């Protein structure tokens, strides 16, 4: 068939080695697909979501239980987001373990890291938008962590939260960050990241003289593989969204005491009785921040909540620049010898994060 617009987004042919499932795991492409799903389902939710503190949680309930297919769209949005985080992490691991970050792809690796951070922030801001009983403590601790940063801490707090008590005022600003601020930046970086992939010669392979296999596939073939991947991911997403509902909890109470009913009038009460209020809430971070919550139990919040995560980010960012450069012939091979140090470092960091997450369950 004659190539369409989507075919022409791809080069006429690419080396077959670049398109092997066992090399790329289709992780990067799946990430883009999930981002598209998130955009569409997110916009659909905007037709019904109300971003003010009194109505936010109720509008989420309306979407979940009353809007036709609303629950399904919301579940799709939730699962696409969590899968995106996992797939992005897989993609990062794949890139490091196949030495695909080496020159000329070092800048693109940084763009990818930036995307990863933005995806985490989008997941967090989206989670806050539920505005239910579970989000207050993560919101307060997360935004107070900003305040621990010297010099610019208060400024950062104001631009992310908008000032005031986080649990009363942050919603509108988090909403704007989530649907617009972070989304615009993610879109730009994603386009740039995809552009750089093409400009840098496609998915990482050794330079042509060093390649073992010189077969190529057509753009049509490549598109077929991508479509197949999209079908499979789509089917998994739809099944997840149909059978595993997104979390939902009662709305955040207006005040810490018992919510008074519509008919309440305080000044008519002549006598008062004191009853102990049960306010125990299991304060848990969202799953992707459980490891940070665990570290924060140790000591100084600036150290464990800001410096250590930034340190991990910096280490990852420096891999293409400071660590021993992988040999050209090793690019695209799984677990090559020449970038062992980078592999071990990333493995240790991943293990650290995973173990802390499991410990904090």
């Amino acid at each position, binding site marked *: 068939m004659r190539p369409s617009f989507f075919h022409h987004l791809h080069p006429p042919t690419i080396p077959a080695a670049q398109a092997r499932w066992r090399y790329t795991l289709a992780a990067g492409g799946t990430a883009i697909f999930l981002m598209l799903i998130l955009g569409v389902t997110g916009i659909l939710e905007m037709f019904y979501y109300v971003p003010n503190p009194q109505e936010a949680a109720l509008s989420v*309930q309306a979407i979940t239980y009353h809007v036709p297919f609303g629950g399904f769209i919301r579940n799709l949005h939730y699962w696409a987001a969590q899968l995106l985080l996992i797939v992005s992490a897989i993609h990062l691991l794949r890139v490091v373990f196949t030495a695909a970050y080496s020159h000329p792809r070092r800048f693109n690796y940084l763009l990818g890291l930036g995307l990863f951070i933005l995806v985490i922030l989008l997941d967090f801001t989206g989670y806050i938008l539920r505005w239910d009983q579970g989000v207050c403590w993560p919101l307060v601790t997360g935004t107070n962590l900003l305040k621990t940063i010297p010099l610019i801490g208060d400024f950062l707090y104001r631009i992310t939260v908008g000032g005031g008590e986080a649990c009363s005022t942050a919603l509108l600003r988090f909403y704007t960050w989530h649907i617009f601020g972070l989304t615009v930046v993610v879109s730009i970086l994603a386009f740039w990241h995809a552009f750089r992939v093409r400009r840098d010669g496609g998915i990482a392979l050794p330079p042509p003289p060093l390649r073992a296999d010189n077969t190529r596939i057509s753009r049509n073939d490549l598109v077929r593989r991508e479509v*197949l991947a999209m079908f499979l991911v789509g089917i998994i997403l739809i*099944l997840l969204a149909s059978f595993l509902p997104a979390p939902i909890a009662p709305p955040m109470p207006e005040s810490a005491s018992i919510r008074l009913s519509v*008919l309440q009038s305080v000044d008519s009460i*002549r006598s008062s*009785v*004191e009853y102990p209020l049960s306010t125990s809430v299991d304060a848990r971070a969202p799953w992707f921040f459980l490891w940070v919550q665990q570290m924060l139990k140790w000591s100084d919040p600036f150290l464990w909540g800001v410096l250590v995560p930034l340190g991990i980010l910096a280490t990852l960012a420096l891999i293409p620049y400071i660590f021993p450069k992988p040999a050209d012939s090793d690019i695209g091979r799984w677990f090559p010898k020449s970038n062992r140090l980078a592999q071990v470092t990333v493995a240790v960091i991943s293990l650290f994060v995973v173990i802390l997450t499991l410990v904090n369950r």
Partner: protein
Amino acid sequence: MRRLLTLSSFLFLLTFLLVWWMNSRALKPVELIPTLTGESEYCLTCHADLPEISASHPVKTFGCVSCHGGERLALDADLAHSTMRGGANPSDLSVVEASCGGTNCHSGSEAENRNHIQRVTTSVQSTYAGAIANIRFTFGAQTDLNAHFGINAVTDDETRTGITSLSTFDPSSEVNPFIKEFGKNCLTCHLNATPREGDVYARQTGCAACHTPLFDSPPIFGENGGSQKGVHTLTTAIPYTQCNACHNRGNYDLRTMTFDERADQPTNRLQGYYQPIAQFTKCEYTLDCVDCHTRSEVMGDGDIHANQKDIQYVQCKTCHGTPTELPLTKTLTDPNDIVFTLAFLNPVIDLKLGDTILITEKGEPLWNIRALSDGTYEMFGKATSQYFTFNPVMGSSCTQTGEDQSSSYCHGCHAVER
């Protein structure tokens, strides 16, 4: 590849069909917009078969959420029930203000007869102030019989008894071991407490302790198997069995500081109403407790009282009079009189303007007792609707002096043998 694509596009289509199919199977929400709140609720989606709770709380007006709390939009049971007040009983005293309160409801002004919550929370049945004060005095923890402690701390800004507040009774901070035992064994029968283990003690807490009957018809002990959690009903036609979940169950032993349950296994009302040691007349077991004991006695009058004897005042002469006095009466001239509301809620008697009913010494209406033109009186049992007529003591061959209203006095002639 092409076959794989065809297969996966087919599976893709199947998942869309699956989504549509699951959507068609979903619960059809049943909406209710109560006139009092104007906000839609969906409780009836699952609970449409619940009976109306009472004639004065129609669900079309109140809805469910204004009393029970809960998430009005949720169609999933866990979320919908998560913010319900008091579990299945929103009248538990810890949440009653939010569920039943409000100036137009049950925490309004005394003048409008809307201060039920304030009265109940300060009543002796709730504070247990007298028992606590007596035990503490007996065992030396306080040097007077004034009330200082209640089950829960209460305050009264407009006290007529001089008691402005009670602190929370905390048995663990008491020194005397008997008072500690008292705290362990003897606090199960006030309005806040969870009842003792055992079917005969089964009741709800809070307002529902009295107003939500547990059985469809008053049971006799031992016959009606199994305690029920209560039907979805609020009533003022409270049978004696409701009161007997706490009262007439046995006696406290001050020496061992334990509760000795009554040992008999009665099978009818005569045997079951009171403990074997009790002495009572015919009307005291054919009528129900609410036929004599007034709202003020049971629910309190708004003031903190130090002792049950300060609030309980109904006597034989209240209805029967003495050899020299007829019982007090009142002729109904005001169509807005509360007695018409009371009679409407429990329609055992058709009261009309111009009827003359009995009233107590404090002016509380005994609205189910009407004076007849021939000098006798007629009475309708509040819980049983039974019809009685009786004569006043004045003009009869009673040899009572009138001032002596002690229990043994009238019982001396009129006590029932069983």
